[in-house]
């Protein structure tokens, strides 16, 4: 809960102080984030100790931030509003989960399989006891799905609303598929009860700290990647693509390749975020693929300001911070708050919080 508040304050201040100051504040936030896992390692009675609760909460929000960033690359820059990013997130999570289940099961089968009386691993589980292969799957599963779906969708020039609705149908189909016990991913119970990761106890403080640290690193890396892309000619082609696809084609660019590249990249980032999310929250189940989750991710981006990279991070932090707070303080009113937030943002903040801050900064 401290995180998002800090972020807003910082961002607001940064808008007032200009680019150098924002850089300084960004570094400060980064320093805080990097310090958190270290502080978690302090003994519990230390005043500076960061509790496991705070660490996992912030870690979870950071994973969402990566999703928001990935979605921003596709939506904010290339105009591809995906209502199915939850699917890629969950696929990455499931790939990681498969590894964790294998670790927990030792030489036997994962628990849910043994009570389905399966005696053999399904083919797609082979090799998942190897961390490296699991990491490959984290990238390959969402990446290949995005590649195939994107290839066909972009080939037939599905765009705008149609694209969004197709992605929604895709994630819905995925959810139904994973809900089935017979699919071999634990049905609606999904994967839980992880024990170790690379031999380290998953509940141990240093494991938590490392996972958190990895999340921060991934976030910073994706932010840097996004920033580099946005400033390259590639980024400008994407913007052009978003605004006037036909014109771009008549300039001799093939939009399919560009869309496919950013779409797959975005999916892979989501998958990586999912892979880091699962060991931190301790569960992955098909409800991560529910269309609602993906729509919510779009709101993070819209709230923060799309096409701004930093904005979506703010949006994800704000909404999730609010959610954590509201569901404790006023559980009945959380949906009202979220609903009004959607409306207010679309009506009054077309450029999101970042737009608002920038405007304030200019005044």
């Amino acid at each position, binding site marked *: 809960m401290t995180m998002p508040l800090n972020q807003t304050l910082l961002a607001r201040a940064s808008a007032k102080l200009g680019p150098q100051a924002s850089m300084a504040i960004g570094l400060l936030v980064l320093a805080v984030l990097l310090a958190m896992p270290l502080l978690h390692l302090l003994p519990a009675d230390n005043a500076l100790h960061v509790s496991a609760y705070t660490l996992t909460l912030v870690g979870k929000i950071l994973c969402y931030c990566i999703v928001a960033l990935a979605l921003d690359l596709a939506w904010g820059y290339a105009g591809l509003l995906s209502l199915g990013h939850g699917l890629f997130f969950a696929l990455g999570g499931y790939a990681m989960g498969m590894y964790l289940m294998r670790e927990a099961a030792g030489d036997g089968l994962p628990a849910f399989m043994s009570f389905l009386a399966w005696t053999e691993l399904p083919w797609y589980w082979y090799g998942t006891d190897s961390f490296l292969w699991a990491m490959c799957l984290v990238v390959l599963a969402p990446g290949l799905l995005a590649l195939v779906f994107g290839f*066909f969708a972009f080939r037939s020039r599905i765009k705008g609303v*149609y694209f969004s609705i197709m992605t929604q149908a895709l994630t819905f189909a995925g959810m139904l598929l994973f809900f089935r016990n017979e699919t071999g991913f634990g049905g609606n119970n999904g994967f839980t009860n992880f024990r170790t990761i690379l031999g380290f106890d998953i509940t141990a403080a240093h494991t938590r700290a490392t996972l958190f640290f990895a999340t921060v690193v991934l976030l910073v890396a994706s932010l840097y990647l996004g920033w580099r892309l946005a400033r390259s000619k590639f980024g400008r082609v994407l913007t052009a693509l978003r605004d006037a696809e036909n014109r771009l084609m008549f300039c001799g660019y093939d939009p399919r390749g560009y869309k496919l590249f950013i779409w797959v990249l975005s999916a892979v980032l989501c998958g990586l975020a999912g892979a880091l999310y699962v060991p931190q929250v301790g569960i992955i189940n098909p409800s991560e693929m529910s269309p609602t989750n993906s729509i919510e991710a*779009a709101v993070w981006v819209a709230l923060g300001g799309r096409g701004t990279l930093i904005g979506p991070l703010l949006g994800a932090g704000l909404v999730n911070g609010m959610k954590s707070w509201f569901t404790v303080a006023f559980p009945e009113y959380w949906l*009202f708050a979220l609903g009004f937030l959607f409306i207010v943002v*679309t009506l009054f903040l077309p450029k999101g919080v970042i737009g608002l801050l920038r405007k304030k900064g200019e005044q």
Partner: protein
Amino acid sequence: MSTALTRILLSLLLLLPLAAHAGDAQDFVAANPAKQASLLERWSAAPDAARLPLIEALQQGRVAADSAKNAFIEIDGAYQPAEGDVQPVETPKKLRLNNRLRGLTATALASHQLLGEDPALRLAAAKQLQKSAKPAQLQLLNAQVASETDDGVRDALTLALANLQLVDSDPAVRLAAVRLLGETGDPLARTRLETLLDPAVEIDAGVRTAAETSLAQVKRKLLIGELLGQAFSGLSLGSILLLAALGLAITFGLLGVINMAHGEMLMLGAYSTYMVQVMFQRFAPEALALYPLVALPAAFFVTAAIGMALERTVIRHLYGRPLETLLATWGISLILIQLVRVIFGAQNVEVANPAWLSGGIQVLPNLVLPYNRIVIIGFALFVVLLTWLLLNKTRLGLNVRAVTQNRNMAACCGVPTGRVDMLAFGLGSGIAGLGGVALSQIGNVGPDLGQSYIIDSFLVVVLGGVGQLAGSVMAAFGLGIANKILEPQIGAVLGKILILALIILFIQKRPQGLFALKGRVID
């Protein structure tokens, strides 16, 4: 139970008519369930007109007993002694039957009704006995067939008898029975005939051959019934999808608003139905059966008003920004869901089918068409017609089409675009409300009702081609029928997934939907 024993028992009973039913009710009330069952079996083998009121009361759950085990029959709230002139010790308690006893009561009632005057009742009784006649009733049925005056009832009784005659000792009787069963399309006949194919069961080769022929006949009839049933269920599912999607075809298809709150309009329509039903229960319980008819306009106006209010306050600002409408209307839908939860509670509310929407019509022995589904198919077509007329034959429709095609031009021609937008959105919402009334008759009414239809609705509209009413109709029925063809083959879950995958593939092929206008695209 052996037949011989029953016959002896039966003849004994017939010899003692008066003594037997002096205390029927009393006997029944005093007995334990097992004894009650054998009583009912005895009664159905040897019906007695005087016993009819008791059995009717049993069937309707009106038989009661006090602690002294005296039997009473409830008539309009008052307890009358079933026999004699006893006064209840205290308020008698109603007898509760279990399913087995209920089944036996139905058989007993049927055999008693055979003695009645009304041919329609006798026919119904004969049909019941086709399903449930016991070997002990063989003699009774034989006697009834002989004395029956009405041809229809006699035919039905002959069939009921034939079921019992399959195990007759005389091969000729068995053969006739087998031939008769071949005439029916009754699924039970199939099982019965199948057992006769086994030489260990049926020793007579002639009967076995006849059974084979009859079986083939029955199977053919069953297949017809099954296919018709599948076609009907496809149509029915299609009509439901259509009703769910039709409002969206206007708000999304014509106005271009990605109306994620569409599902909530369905939900509000269903809740309006609930409110109307509550009003009827409170103020006009005698006319309760008519509440769906009143609910239609009520739901239409409630949802249309809410839709128009939303249009004026939120959506108006977002025309031309389709993806923003998606987010804003999603927000609206969250608020509406939670609002309904706060007002009506998170639980589902009870919307009862009136009698005329309950039950179904038996078309073939294995094909029942439920009334509510028939009515909904008709209603869906009616709403389509209404929408078509509104859009194509009225001033409003002309204005709507003008505004959606070229807003600025329409404004220049003096079309009040703001008002038209509002009315069109109201119309779409109102039609969604009508859909909600229909949905309330087949499923749950709860705050989440709309959520389960929103994806399907969008798929119907997109598949049909945005802005194409005819396309939506085709898409809805196409999806319904495809779903029902797939479901028996691969199961409901994989069927649903496969349909989604097929739609995704189809849209790749025809991104503009089934009914897209080809033309020069203006950039």
